[in-house]
């Protein structure tokens, strides 16, 4: 506050002095604001914000649903539009929760099978190596002693479970937070069901006829997939792409197995939160997305059956286009 006072005071004084010297020819260069600051901590005066307050009369209308465009693949033509709850795909980013989930997954993925033998597990006789006294050397109990070569390991790794726990609701929130993060950034591309990679007919025919060796097949796929994803700006140069399908699709999965530097393909059951955060974008088929959200909404729906209440399953995605009345007519 003191700084502001001083600033305005000095400004006023300067104005006065300028006004007093009317015949002055050389204009005084006012120092930039930053050098006029007082020593006191003061936030720089930025340009005035537009009115950030909301009128009392204006009703607060938070976003409750967000649209999801369903694309065809691989032409990426927008085909349909669905509406999802903002609690599914428009959650605020919570890095802490994502971190918890990724660490939880990492812990539970650890194999924990490393094991070194202790002195009691190393094979061999436990006879005293040499007499306690008189040899001139150090006393030795048994040859399995940890200080001896070939002996046991005193504090070596043992089989153990590294798994940690995370509340189900927190983990599910992390899933939807990860999806929301992708959605906001425009990195969640939803395709029609049956997402697969169409390979050229003549190539498949020749591969089936045995005209191509394994190396030639792989080289073709690498070139074809690389060019296709490159043209889509989805390839290696753009951070790779994760394709998620309900079940394994042979062409897609084999192709991305071969051309792994361009992207990766995962079945729904193999997907983790970490997978959702890794590559440049997520391409997921419509039903897989629905199933994914359905499996991870324990914090939104109750699993407890109430005796006098009929549990109503709310639809996850309500179609907006093609217009529902047109579809029902057809």
């Amino acid at each position, binding site marked *: 506050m003191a700084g502001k006072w001083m600033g305005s005071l000095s400004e006023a004084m300067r104005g006065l002095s300028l006004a007093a010297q009317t015949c002055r020819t050389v204009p005084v260069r006012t120092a930039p604001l930053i050098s006029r600051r007082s020593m006191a901590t003061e936030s720089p005066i930025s340009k005035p914000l537009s009115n950030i307050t909301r009128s009392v009369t204006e009703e607060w209308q938070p*976003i409750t649903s*967000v*649209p*999801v*465009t369903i694309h*065809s693949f*691989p*032409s*990426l*033509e*927008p085909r349909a*539009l669905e*509406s999802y709850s903002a609690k599914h795909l*428009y959650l605020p980013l919570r890095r802490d929760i994502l971190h918890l989930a990724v660490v939880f997954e990492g812990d539970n993925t650890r194999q924990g099978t490393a094991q070194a033998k202790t002195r009691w597990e190393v094979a061999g006789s436990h006879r005293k190596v040499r007499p306690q006294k008189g040899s001139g050397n150090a006393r030795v109990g048994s040859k399995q002693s940890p200080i001896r070569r070939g002996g046991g390991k005193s504090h070596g790794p043992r089989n153990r479970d590294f798994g940690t726990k995370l509340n189900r609701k927190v983990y599910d929130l992390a899933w939807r937070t990860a999806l929301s993060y992708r*959605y*906001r*950034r*425009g990195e*969640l*591309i939803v395709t029609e069901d*049956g997402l*697969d*990679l*169409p*390979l*050229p*007919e*003549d*190539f*498949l*025919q*020749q*591969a*089936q006829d045995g*005209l*191509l*060796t394994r*190396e*030639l*097949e792989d*080289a*073709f796929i690498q*070139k*074809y997939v690389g*060019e*296709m994803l490159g*043209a*889509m700006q989805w390839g290696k140069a753009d951070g790779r792409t994760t394709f998620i399908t309900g079940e*394994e*699709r*042979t*062409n897609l*999965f*084999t*192709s991305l*197995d071969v051309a792994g530097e361009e992207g990766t393909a995962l079945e729904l059951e193999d997907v983790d939160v970490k997978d959702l955060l890794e590559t440049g974008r997520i391409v997921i088929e419509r039903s897989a997305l629905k199933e994914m959200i359905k499996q991870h909404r324990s914090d939104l729906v109750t699993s407890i059956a109430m005796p006098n209440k009929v549990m109503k399953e709310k639809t996850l995605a309500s179609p*907006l*286009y*093609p*217009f529902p009345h047109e579809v029902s007519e057809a």
Partner: protein
Amino acid sequence: MRHLPRLRGAVSASLCCSSPSHIRTTAAVAAVATTSSSTTAQSLQRRTLSTSVTDVGAVEVQTPPQGLKPPSQKWQVAVRPDQITDPAYVPAQDGLELEEDGGLDGWWENPANYGVGKEWVGFGPAEKVTDPAILEVATYRALVEALLLSQNWSDPVAREAVLSSGWGPMVLTTTAAKTKFHNRPKSTLLCVDREEMVAALQKHALPATERETQLESEEQVETAFAAEQEVEVNGEAETAVTTEQQAGVTEEAEAALAAEKTAEVKEEDDLTEGVIPAEQAQALVKELGHEWKQANLRNPVLKFFAAKRIQKLTGHKIPDGKLVAITTAGSLVKELVKPPKAKKLAEEIENKEIFQSLPNVKVFPRRVTPIDKEKMVGRWKVIREELERRGLPVIGTANIDNAIEKKWVTGAK
């Protein structure tokens, strides 16, 4: 280490693009390459090991439909070393001495083998339009068309046809689509004479042969503007203007249009390439003014239509997450015109010209290496010449290892 089964066969593959819509099916009969690598006489002079591909009397492989050419299936087994009669033959003593002949490395890099027409074709032009004026015109046009399609167009087939059509003649953006903005708090996009707009859309959708005659009557269309009707964009509130009045007008034409349109879609694909010239777009931008940019955009379906049209016209894909935040026509234009984010900090600095005023600051796109520093003072050429003269490696250490004494001193293993 392959855990997955091999690719599905062509016959059983349900999705192996039996009708490859994403692939340009131009007549693609690639020229059969003459891959005569070497004659037998040449190959005998310097014998290579094992199976070198020769095409002595090779059966001509049938040219596959799209020009994909598999290698010849004719293999010749090399002559055993003890049966070679050529006195010039010197057996290799070392694997490094062996010559490589033929082989299938880079087989598909040859366009004659790979064929043509395998490039990906997306929805919209391959190259994104970056000219701001064209983008603005495209946005305006997309919004007008989207508004009409979302409210007036009852035939799904015709709607899809319009959504997937290219630029076509500039009917909508030139004269017919005159709009006016109403400065009221919670509304509104456009005041459009709907009948005129529908007529314009239909005219736009007419086959190319009929277009020219139609275009002549544009001036009449322009003068015919009279009734301005308000269109509420906010989705939840349908305005008093019902579609019933237009239904009679539009549906007759739509029925006829649907048939024409479906036949015309293929033709339209060629037209997508033809984006309007920038000068024309700039003139249109001036004509359109800026008032329309303040219009509210809330209806998700309308935005979906607009985004689809924009993708078709300009190649810009607007993701849903961005569309949620776009609430006015102006912000839509802004989103399109905004240049893509630079991938590297150095590019960002260069684009924004941040340190231009500071004479002692230079920004490099990569690490400044010792070689770069030598180059800056003009010493590198001399150093390189001297190194070459002494037979020393110019870059790196070649096979010369560190001094062995270093290992003794540090005790490193």
